[in-house]
């Protein structure tokens, strides 16, 4: 037993040649966010507070595909979505189609706590955010030059594929790496458990680069991108369509519950056997304070810490120990 926290900044085809000026800010951000989460757990904040806090930090950081720094829709706009779940009560909140709300994860929490609903989207969600006094800004706030460039490159790369008029294949299609090794898929997420075994999960994203306006991914779908119950908390990332039909987050918990698998084995089973390769990654913690962060993509930005003082960070399969 003991507390544990894990967070991710997105899984995808993260090229090993990624230049330092791209890698370092993300590494630094993960370290900073992990520290915030660890401090909050040490201060006995509830896991629900902890995951919200950490995801807010990740949303505010422009280097990840959530909040500021979200990838762009096919029209060059940003549409954000997020989801939060409290393992103890299984209460949850989700939002989609946000364009001005600074912290989507906080709106998801307000939906969970202040409405009889679970999920609000688009205009209705935006309106609710204003009624609740959440911080909103001009949509341009979220758009970064890197993502404008990312959209441009993606459109150019995919023009060739579209010309061959192939039927749309959802799970085989690999994402097209951009020159600097950036991944076009991904999200941010955090899972945490306290000393009493209370669990929570939170995920937030701008979605898929060049996505159709109105496209909803796995992130706000309870059981797909986000899930927490009394056994574990899971936040998934990767190709949304694969995470959704694989009901990834729920399946980790279901394997633990119905087949008695350990957290590690359950997560590995889902990532290795139940979704296509190069599509999915996740972070998960168990009520017992265990952590696992499997992925079947080239890489996944991730970090974790446990009460015994151990902390680690990784992008590709190898990990680096951190001293916090």
């Amino acid at each position, binding site marked *: 037993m003991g507390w544990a926290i894990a967070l991710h900044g997105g899984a995808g085809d993260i090229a090993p040649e990624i230049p330092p000026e791209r890698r370092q800010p993300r590494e630094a951000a993960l370290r900073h966010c992990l520290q915030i989460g660890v401090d909050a757990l040490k201060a006995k904040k509830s896991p629900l507070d902890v995951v919200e806090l950490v995801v807010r930090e990740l949303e505010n950081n422009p280097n990840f595909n959530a909040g500021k720094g979200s990838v762009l829709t096919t029209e060059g706009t940003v549409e954000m979505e997020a989801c939060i779940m409290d393992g103890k009560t*299984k*209460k*949850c909140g*989700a939002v*989609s*189609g946000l364009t001005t709300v600074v912290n989507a994860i906080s709106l998801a929490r307000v939906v969970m706590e202040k*409405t*009889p*609903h*679970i*999920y*609000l*989207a*688009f*205009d*209705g*969600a935006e*309106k*609710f955010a204003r009624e609740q006094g959440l911080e909103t800004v001009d949509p341009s706030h979220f758009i970064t030059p890197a993502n404008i460039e990312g959209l441009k490159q993606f459109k150019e790369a995919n023009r060739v594929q579209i010309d061959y008029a192939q039927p*749309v294949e*959802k799970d085989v*299609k690999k994402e097209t790496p951009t020159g600097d090794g950036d991944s076009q898929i991904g999200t941010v997420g955090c899972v945490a458990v306290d000393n009493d075994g209370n669990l929570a999960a939170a995920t937030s994203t701008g979605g*898929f680069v060049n*996505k*159709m*306006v*109105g*496209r*909803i*991914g796995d992130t706000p*779908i*309870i*059981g*797909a991108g986000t*899930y927490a119950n009394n056994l574990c908390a899971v936040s998934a990332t990767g190709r*949304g*369509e694969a995470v*959704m*039909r*694989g*009901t990834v987050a*729920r*399946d980790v918990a*279901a*394997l633990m519950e*119905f*087949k008695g698998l350990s957290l590690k084995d359950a997560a590995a089973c889902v990532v290795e056997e139940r979704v296509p390769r190069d599509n999915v990654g996740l972070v998960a913690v168990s009520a017992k304070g265990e952590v696992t962060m499997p992925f079947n993509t080239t890489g996944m930005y991730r970090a974790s810490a446990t009460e015994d003082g151990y902390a680690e960070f990784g992008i590709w399969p190898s990990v680096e120990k951190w001293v916090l």
Partner: protein
Amino acid sequence: MGGWAIAVHGGAGVDPNLPQQRQEEAKQLLTRCLNLGISAFRSNLPAIDVVELVVRELETDPLFNSGRGSALTAKGTVEMEASIMDGCGRRCGAVSGVTTVKNPVSLARLVMERSPHSYLAFSGAEEFARQQGVEVVDNEYFITEENVGMLKLAKEANTIVFDYRIPALGLETCSAVVESPIQMNGLPISVYAPETVGCVVVDSKGRCAAATSTGGLMNKMTGRIGDSPLIGAGTYACNLCGVSCTGEGEAIIRGTLAREVAAVMEYKGLGLQEAVDFVVKERLDEGKAGLIAVSSKGEVACGFNTTGMFRGFATEDGFMEVGIWD
């Protein structure tokens, strides 16, 4: 075992005082849908086609809460959502916030088959509908007088909940404002609109499919999404089974109800009815919901912890039944 099977539903949570005539109309519609499914099987249509055409029928008929006859938002408009899943390969499609598309389930299918995504909503879904050339109508088409009346009652019921000084209203219209302690989603059962229609099917090749469609919760906030379009919550299909749920959306989402039936079959080896019973008993807590399911072996099952559920079943060996109560 084996052979085709079909189950349909028109929502869980029925007013015990529902007039007999309405009950008859519901049973007739359910029977008609079963017969449509049966003809489709005889023409060897695959499961995915059958669920779509049956749910289209349910959407087009104004009786239940989907398509025409959908429950109204707080603004008095209709916002529909639907999802469809093909057990083969677990392909899926979903839409939310649809306001002009005549058959949301068909739009969900197009999302599955003709877009690179699985779920489209609001203006994006409407835009896609136009690109695909599906039939669109004015939002008014979906609004029935009866639901306009129901919305008014729902708003009053909410007012009553908050302000006990307002005397209980003598309501001039329809069924029941008999003092009923039964509530769902915070509304008295007389005003609550059972929230969806759905169909699950297994064809003679053992392929399962599921589809669910709804106008959602009466008097809902604009932008509210329920369980019906959420894969794993309101709808799920895999190589073992097809499931469609209905009832209190929150409970269904938290319980990932549709996926749960398949998960206990797959991971615990339970049979279809056992799985359905387990899920309804153990996964709903205080929530009220119902579901229908079919297995790849040609079985049908249903379970609900609500007062009643509009449902019908038919299997290849000639079994056919429609029901409302326990």
